[in-house]
């Protein structure tokens, strides 16, 4: 019973991390039609930058978290201005450019961490555990979940209630049409990509606290984030949240009960979605362009 409850909580909190990583990617993919193959390495670079700040600041975890977010936001901003906007309307070029960028970021991360696996283990509440009946559970995982839920609510409010949100929704549907209505959609791309950088920077430190991080984890995080947006549907935030939850739970339980075939099961699920509902499980309608 306690064991299953722990697995359930692990699945849900892992889903929280996946959502924070994938939410930016799905907005970027939905709006810019570009698969940012450097997203996983941006996650690791965010963690590495956070690690540097963590050391410099004598283990100030909050500073590391927010600092990583802000630095990665600036990195994304410059990346979009200097490179990614050249790939506008050319998905293959976008993939090639971002793969190149991912190598650079991975090397930078190796430089910052000397290529060693690291884990944030701050003192105080973030690094401690709490007791719920017979269950002992780390606060850090709970914090990841709280951040994920707060982010979900924030993005939904922006998308549903603000003008920028309306432009983003319309842009995911049909970005040429939005541009034909007098709206500078490339400026919106820049803002959304910078925001996605901020989120992935936060996610790096959160993930490095919840479990650990190492520079060779960039590829698997990239793959997981892609799986979340495939299942959730391009550009859908609610979809990303539900898909993260499904993949998080599936991973948590299969790793515990059938560890040998856990990866096979998770991938089979994603492939089944690709075959049966290629536009994703939670997308209303897809416009062909």
């Amino acid at each position, binding site marked *: 019973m306690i064991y299953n409850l722990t697995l359930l909580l692990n699945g849900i909190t892992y889903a929280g991390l996946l959502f924070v990583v994938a939410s930016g990617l799905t907005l970027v993919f939905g709006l810019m039609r570009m698969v940012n193959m450097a997203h996983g390495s941006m996650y690791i670079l965010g963690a590495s930058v956070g690690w540097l700040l963590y050391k410099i600041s004598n283990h100030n975890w909050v500073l590391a978290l927010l600092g990583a977010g802000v630095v990665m936001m600036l990195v994304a901003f410059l990346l979009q201005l200097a490179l990614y906007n050249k790939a506008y309307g050319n998905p293959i070029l976008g993939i090639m450019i971002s793969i190149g960028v991912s190598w650079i970021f991975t090397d930078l991360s190796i430089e910052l961490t000397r290529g060693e696996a690291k884990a944030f283990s701050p003192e105080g509440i973030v690094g401690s555990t709490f007791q719920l009946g017979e269950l002992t559970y780390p606060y850090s995982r709970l914090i990841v979940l709280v951040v994920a839920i707060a982010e979900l609510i924030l993005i939904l409010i922006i998308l549903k209630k603000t*003008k920028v949100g*309306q*432009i983003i*929704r*319309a842009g*995911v*549907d*049909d970005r*040429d*049409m*939005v*541009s*034909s*209505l*007098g*709206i*500078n*959609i490339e400026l919106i791309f820049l803002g959304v990509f910078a925001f996605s950088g901020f989120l992935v920077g936060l996610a790096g430190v959160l993930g490095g606290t919840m479990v650990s991080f190492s520079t060779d984890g960039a590829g698997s995080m990239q793959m997981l984030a892609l799986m979340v947006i495939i299942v959730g549907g391009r550009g859908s935030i609610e979809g990303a949240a539900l898909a993260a939850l499904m993949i998080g739970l599936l991973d948590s339980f299969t790793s515990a009960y059938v560890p040998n075939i856990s990866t096979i099961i998770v991938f089979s699920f994603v492939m089944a979605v690709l075959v049966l509902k290629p536009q994703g499980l939670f997308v*209303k*309608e897809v*416009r062909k362009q």
Partner: protein
Amino acid sequence: MHESVLTLNNVEAYYDKLHIVQGVNLLLDSGVTSIIGRNGMGKSTLMKAIMGLVSTKGSIKFFGQEIVGLKPYQIAQKGIGYVPQGRRNFPSLTVDEHLTFCASSGFSSEENRWSSDRVYDLFPRLYERKDLYGTSLSGGEQQMLAIGRALVLNPRLLLLDEPSEGLAPTIIDQLVDVFEKIRKENMNILIVEQDLNFCERVTDSTNVMVNGQIAFSGSLRELRNNAELSRKLLGIG
């Protein structure tokens, strides 16, 4: 000197590397004008060229200002409202959001300014459906929405690509009335159409497009009365 609304000079446009528009010269005066022609003659691509949505060579002047090479949003901001073929409303926006998120005071005088409220006055059916999503409407309602969305930009020129396509005759009658109302407020309109009867009811002059070029400019009546010409250009008569 009298300034024309739109002047196209040797305009060439490409769509997926296909050379669709092949040297179009066109002078558009104020009022309602149409471009007609059979399917695949390059009418829609010409509209896209004016909006900056396809790669274009030559010169397109809008109230004397060159717009070739500008981005679509810059062209729209100069005062062109585009109603594309197939309407292209947004599945993720409600009717009301369509009429507010891109609204601009544009080029209309205060008393003629198009707001969502005025669009609802023009199309009461849209008001009844204001909380529905853009693509859950009927074909006629979607066309009204696409026109409304262009009107709230308060443009100086409306570009409409096959507005009557797929609509029931009663809805087409409504559209004719609407264009009559809009033009009274000095809105310039350029319509691309295949439906000659519709064109005859709303436009002053027409241009026929054949194989990527303008083959005839004049009145639709003149074209109709010349059986040989209309057979040659439109394959009818």
